[in-house]
C-alpha cells in the first residue's frame, strides 16, 4: 500500500516538474498510438463498411476472420512483424526494426481488426431499408456511405476508443519491434516494464498512473464527440 502511495507521489512529482524524459515518453506514446489508431480508423471503417454493405460469396467467412482478428494476441503480432522486418526478413530492406515506425505498424495491425469488426457490426445494425431510402433520395454511392457512417457515429467512435485503448496499453509487441530505446522508441508501457524489472516500483507505478491519465483524457475527448446530440 505504501508503495502505491509512493507511486502516486512520484507521479505527481514527475508531472509537476515537467520531467523532460517523462514528457518525452508520454508524448511519444500518444504519437505512436494516435497514429496507429488513426490508420486503423481509416482502414477499419472503410473495409468494415464495404463488407457490411455488399454481398459476395464468402462474406460469412470474411466476417469470421475479422472477428477473430479482434482477438489477435498482440505479442503474436509483435513476433510476426519482427520476423518480417528484421535484417534477414522479407521486409528487412525497409530497415524499420527498432524504430517507432515499426511500433506504429504493429499497433495498427492490432487495432485495425478491432475497428473493422465493430464498424461492420455498426453498419449492419442499421435498418436495411435505410440504405435504400438514402439512395432513393438521390444519393450517389459515396454520399450514401457517408450518411450511413455519420448515422453510426456512436458505435464507430466506440470502435475508435476500443482500438486506441488496445494499443496505448500494449507492451509486448511494442518492446519487440521497438526495442525500448531511450528517447527514441521508449513509451509509457515499455518504460513501466523496464522500471519494474529494475525494481524501481515507485517510478513504474508513476508511469502507470500517467498512462491511465493520458488514456482517460483522450477518451474524454472522444466521448464528448460521441455523445454530443445534434440538437435539443
Amino acid at each position, binding site marked *: 500500500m505504501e508503495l502505491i502511495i509512493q507511486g502516486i507521489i512520484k507521479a505527481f512529482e514527475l508531472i509537476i516538474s515537467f520531467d523532460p524524459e517523462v514528457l518525452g515518453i508520454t508524448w*511519444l506514446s*500518444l*504519437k*505512436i498510438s*494516435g*497514429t496507429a489508431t*488513426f490508420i486503423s480508423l481509416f482502414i477499419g471503417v472503410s473495409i468494415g463498411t464495404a463488407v457490411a454493405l455488399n454481398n459476395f460469396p464468402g462474406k460469412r467467412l470474411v466476417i469470421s476472420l475479422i472477428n477473430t482478428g479482434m482477438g489477435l494476441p498482440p505479442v503474436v503480432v509483435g513476433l510476426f512483424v519482427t520476423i518480417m522486418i*528484421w*535484417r*534477414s526478413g522479407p521486409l*528487412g530492406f*525497409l*530497415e*524499420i*526494426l*527498432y*524504430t*517507432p*515506425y515499426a511500433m*506504429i505498424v504493429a499497433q495498427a495491425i492490432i487495432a485495425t481488426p478491432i475497428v473493422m469488426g465493430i464498424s461492420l457490426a455498426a453498419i449492419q445494425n442499421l435498418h436495411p431499408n435505410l440504405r435504400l431510402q438514402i439512395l432513393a433520395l438521390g444519393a450517389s454511392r459515396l454520399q450514401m456511405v457517408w450518411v450511413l457512417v455519420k448515422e453510426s457515429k456512436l458505435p464507430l467512435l466506440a470502435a475508435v476508443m476500443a482500438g486506441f485503448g488496445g494499443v496505448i496499453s500494449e507492451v509486448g509487441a511494442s518492446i519487440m519491434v521497438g*526495442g*525500448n*530505446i*531511450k528517447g*527514441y522508441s521508449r513509451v509509457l508501457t515499455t518504460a513501466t516494464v523496464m522500471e*519494474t*524489472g*529494475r*525494481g*524501481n*516500483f515507485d517510478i513504474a507505478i508513476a508511469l502507470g498512473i500517467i498512462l491511465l491519465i493520458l488514456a482517460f483524457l483522450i477518451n474524454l475527448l472522444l466521448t464528448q*464527440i460521441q455523445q454530443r446530440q*445534434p440538437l435539443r
Partner: protein
Amino acid sequence: MKMFKKSKIMVTLIIAALFFAVGTANVFAAPQQKNIILATTTSTQDSGLLDELIPVFEKETGYFVKTIAVGSGQAMTMGQKGEADVLLVHSPDAEKKFIDAGYGVNRRLVMHNDFIVIGPGTDPAKIKGIKSSAEALKLIAHANALFLSRSDKSGTHAKEMKLWKQAGINPAGQKWYQETGLGMGQTLSVAAEKKGYTLADRGTYLALKKNLGLDILVEGDAALLNIYHVIEVNSAKWPKVNAEGAKAFADFLVSQGTQAIIKTFGVDKFGSPLFFPDAGKKIEDLGK
C-alpha cells in the same frame, strides 16, 4: 449546416495534428550507416552505465545507437543471425564458442565487476564469510535453503550454473531451487520477498540495496569475477551488419576517455564504483 462545418474543422485539425506529430517523429529512417544495433545485457543497461556512455559516443561520432537489452544468450543469438552489429556481454564461455564459430571478431576486454552471493540476514545456511563461492553454494544445497535463479541464459545465469557444477551439485528440480526466468532487478525483488539466497552482480545489487533487506554474504572469490567483453559481429557472415559502426563503438569502449568514465561511474551515488575498467589488460591480471 453549422454542425457539419464544426465537425469538419475538428476532423481536419486532428488530421493535421497527427501528421505534424508523425512528421516530427524523431530521426527519420536514418540511413543504415548511421545506425548501430548494440545487443547487450539487462544488467548492463539497468546499471545506468550505458545511459552515460552512449550520449557521449553519439555526440562524438554522430552515430545513433540502438541499445537492445536482452540476456547475454539472446544477444549472442542476435549476433549469430546478423541482427545486431556489436555485442557487449559477460558470458565468457559462450562468447568463446561464439568467436570460434566465426560469428564475432575482435573480442576485447572492456571492464569487470563482480558477482556476490546475497541472502537474508538470518543466513540459515551459514555461508557468511566463506571464501569459496562454490563451497557456499554446496552449503546452501545441503541446508535446503531457498535459492532463486534467473534461469534465463543470461551471463549471470551462466556464471551461476558454472558455480553449481564446480560445487558438484545439480540443483534442477530441487524444492529449494526456484527459477524466476526474470531479469536481475526482478529476481532480487523475489529473493527479498521470499527471504532467499541468490547470485547477483554488484552493480544491480547496489542500485536496489535500500529496498531489499538482503546482505552480501560471499564476495571476492576469483570465480565470482564478472567480465565484460565487446564483440563486433562478423560482417563477412552478414553483409548487412554495420561493421564500421561496430568497430567505432568497440574502439570507443576501450578508449582512454571512456575507461575513465567507467572508473568513476556510480561513486557519487553508491560510494563505490560499479565497474572496473580493464581495457588492454590480460585476464589473469584482473582483480588484483
